[in-house]
Each structure stands twice: as C-alpha cells, then as structure tokens.
C-alpha cells in the first residue's frame, strides 16, 4: 500500500466520522423515503384523435417520471440535513485533530501539508457524495420493485443524469464553503455555526441563493434544463474549486494550531 493510500484510508477510517456517517445515511434515507411515498396527481388532457388508452409513449412523459424528478426538490429536510452533515464532516476533518491535541503528531508525519489537505478534502468529498447517492439509490430501487423496468428507462437517461449533476453541484458548493470556514476560523463551534448558517439561512429566508437554488433545477432537468450552462458551471464547479484552492493556501501557509 502506497503512502498516499495509507493517508487516505487513515482519514476515511476515522471512527468518529464513520459513527456520524452511520447515523446520517439512514436518517437521510428516511427523510427522502417519507417524501417519496406521497402520491402525486395532475389534470391533463389529450387530443381525441389518438386512442385514449395505453399511450405507448416514453415513461418519461408519465407522472411517475414527474414525481421521480420532483420529490427531491420538495424534500427540504433531506437537503438541510445533508448541508449540516457536510459541514460537520469537513469541520471534524480539519479541526478535530487540532482541538484534541494530536494534530502535532499528525503534522510531524513525513507528509507535506498540501498532501494532508488533499487527503482530508478528498475523504470529506467521498463521504459527502456517499451521503447523497446511497439514499437516492435505495429510495429509487426498493419502493419501485414492481416497476424496475420503467424506473430503469426513466433513470438511465440524460435528464436524470443532469439531475444527478445538479445534486452534485449542491454537495460541492456546500463542501467548499464549510472547508473554507473550517480552515479560516480557529474554533470548531464557530466554524460550524458560520458555515451552516451561511448555507441554510438564505433558504429559510426564501432567497434564491446557492447552494439551495440548485434544488429548483432538479425538477426542471426533466424538461431539459442543462447543468452545463455558464451560470450553473460557475456556481457548481468554478467557485467551489476556487474556494477549495483558497482554503488550501490558507491551510498550507498557516501554522498548525
């Protein structure tokens, strides 16, 4: 095992973070599942020139597809808990060793500070993406055991892929904000309050701000909204990358404690 893998597996195997992960994934799945198990209905009309029976159209036009794209953006509790957990994970990765006092022994290992930053960021990124994808996978598969073929036809499309990219943008933006605050502020509690409030307060205030403005795009990706437009790439990829670069510089230039 190379030294990089050792470092990464050491960061991923942190017992406290894994314990929170074990609590977090089922809670997120529960919140998502409760919102998935709500019926949805609409009034529609078709032209009588086609027979009004089984339409043989793509299942993407059915209301099941609409529900599969919309329940995610309606499930506010899921996204608030996800933002909270991402903040907690990045703050535990960057600040816990310093506040517990074993940071000196970690930072005296034969790794550069840049490598340590990369390993910590990568471990938090992997855990955050697992927090997003495991509930999505389980809630997408288990309650739809009777119609797996239809669900496969709906989810293995460009549009569902676009939805997943919008959801990933949410994770990247939240992650970069909380990493920035956890290297900027010298106290775990302060860093948590600052990053969580900055992420969630605009949503409570009803402002159309990142990262929660990606949620309204989740449902719109069914009607063809693309995550590769300049505005979304800017807020979902470029700004998170810039913020991570800034936090990396702060991490490398600052003293350990």
């Amino acid at each position, binding site marked *: 095992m190379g030294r990089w893998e050792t470092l990464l597996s050491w960061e991923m195997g942190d017992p406290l973070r894994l314990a929170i992960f074990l609590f977090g994934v089922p809670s997120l799945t529960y919140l998502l599942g409760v919102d998935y198990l*709500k*019926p949805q209905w609409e009034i529609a009309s078709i032209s009588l020139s086609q027979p009004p029976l089984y339409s043989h159209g793509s299942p993407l036009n*059915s*209301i099941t597809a609409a529900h599969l794209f919309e329940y995610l953006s309606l499930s506010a509790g899921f996204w608030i808990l996800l933002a909270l957990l991402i903040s907690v994970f990045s703050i535990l990765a960057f600040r816990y060793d310093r506040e517990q006092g074993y940071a000196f022994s970690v930072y005296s290992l034969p790794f550069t500070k840049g490598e340590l930053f990369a390993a910590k960021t990568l471990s938090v990124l992997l855990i955050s993406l697992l927090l997003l994808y495991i509930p999505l996978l389980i809630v997408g598969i288990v309650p739809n055991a009777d119609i797996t073929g239809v669900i496969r036809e709906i989810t293995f499309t460009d549009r569902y892929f676009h939805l997943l990219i919008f959801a990933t943008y949410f994770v990247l933006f939240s992650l970069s904000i909380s990493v920035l605050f956890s290297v900027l502020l010298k106290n775990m509690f302060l860093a948590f309050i600052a990053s969580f409030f900055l992420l969630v307060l605009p949503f409570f205030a009803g402002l159309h701000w990142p990262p929660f403005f990606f949620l309204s795009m989740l449902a719109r990706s069914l009607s063809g909204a693309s995550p590769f437009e300049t505005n979304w790439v800017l807020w979902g990829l470029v700004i998170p990358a810039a913020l991570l670069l800034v936090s990396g510089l702060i991490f490398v230039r600052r003293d350990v404690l």
Partner: protein
Amino acid sequence: MKGRLPFVLALSFLLSLLAVWGAYITAEKSRGFVGPAVMASSGETLSYVSIHSPGWMVLNSSFNGAGELVVLDEFSGERVFSYNVSEHLNYPLVLPREGSYRIYAINGSLTFSGHYTGVYPTPRVQKVLYGSITVLALLLVLWRWRA
C-alpha cells in the same frame, strides 16, 4: 483500520433499508386528497386525471355525472376498474401497485374527488425489502464472526 470502511458501508446500507421500512410505517398513517377534478371530453380533447401511486393504496373516491368511468394502469396498459356511472358512484378504488394511473370518462363527463388514508408496500416490495434486510444482516454477522 483497513476493513473498517467497507464494513461501515455495508452496515449503512442495512440501516438505510431499515429506514425505508420506517418510512413505510410513517406512510401508512399519511392521508390526503386527490381532486376535485372534472373529467370530460369536449370537442377534440379528453381531459383526464393522472395519479402517481407510490405503492398499494385505496382511493375512497366519489364520482358524479354520467359516462363510462375507466381507471387505467399506464405501464401495463390494463384496466384496473371500469364502470358505467349514471348519476353517482362512491367506490373504494384500489391502486394495486406503484406506477402511473389514468382516470377518465368515455362518452360523458364526471366530477371526481377522492381521499386516501395510507400508502402500503406491495408484496413484491415487501419481499425485496425484508429479504435484502435479512440477507445483509446474515452477511454482516458472518463477516464479524470471522474477524
């Protein structure tokens, strides 16, 4: 240190499946309304109600008007229910599994409203859910036993 992450991942899958079970327990107590809606064929267009059912549910529905009522499962194409309504119909409509349903009236117009008092997992979903929980739990026990 090396075996911890895969074990935690498998355990989180198990706990998430239990959370889906919990979500079904919550959904069994959820209630709500569908409608009211008017289903009619006027000229060249036919208006209908389409419902996404997340599982097995009973829609206590009432219809007023005249016409042939049809409830269609969109994915299998089969008629779940059809009835010739002449004035009024009060009927507990069973949507037998998850998927999209279409409710419409042929040769007439009907008003429709319904309410449901819970969403339940179908037998297939129960098999998948409890089966995967059992298999995963046994695997995890064996894994820890060997360790």
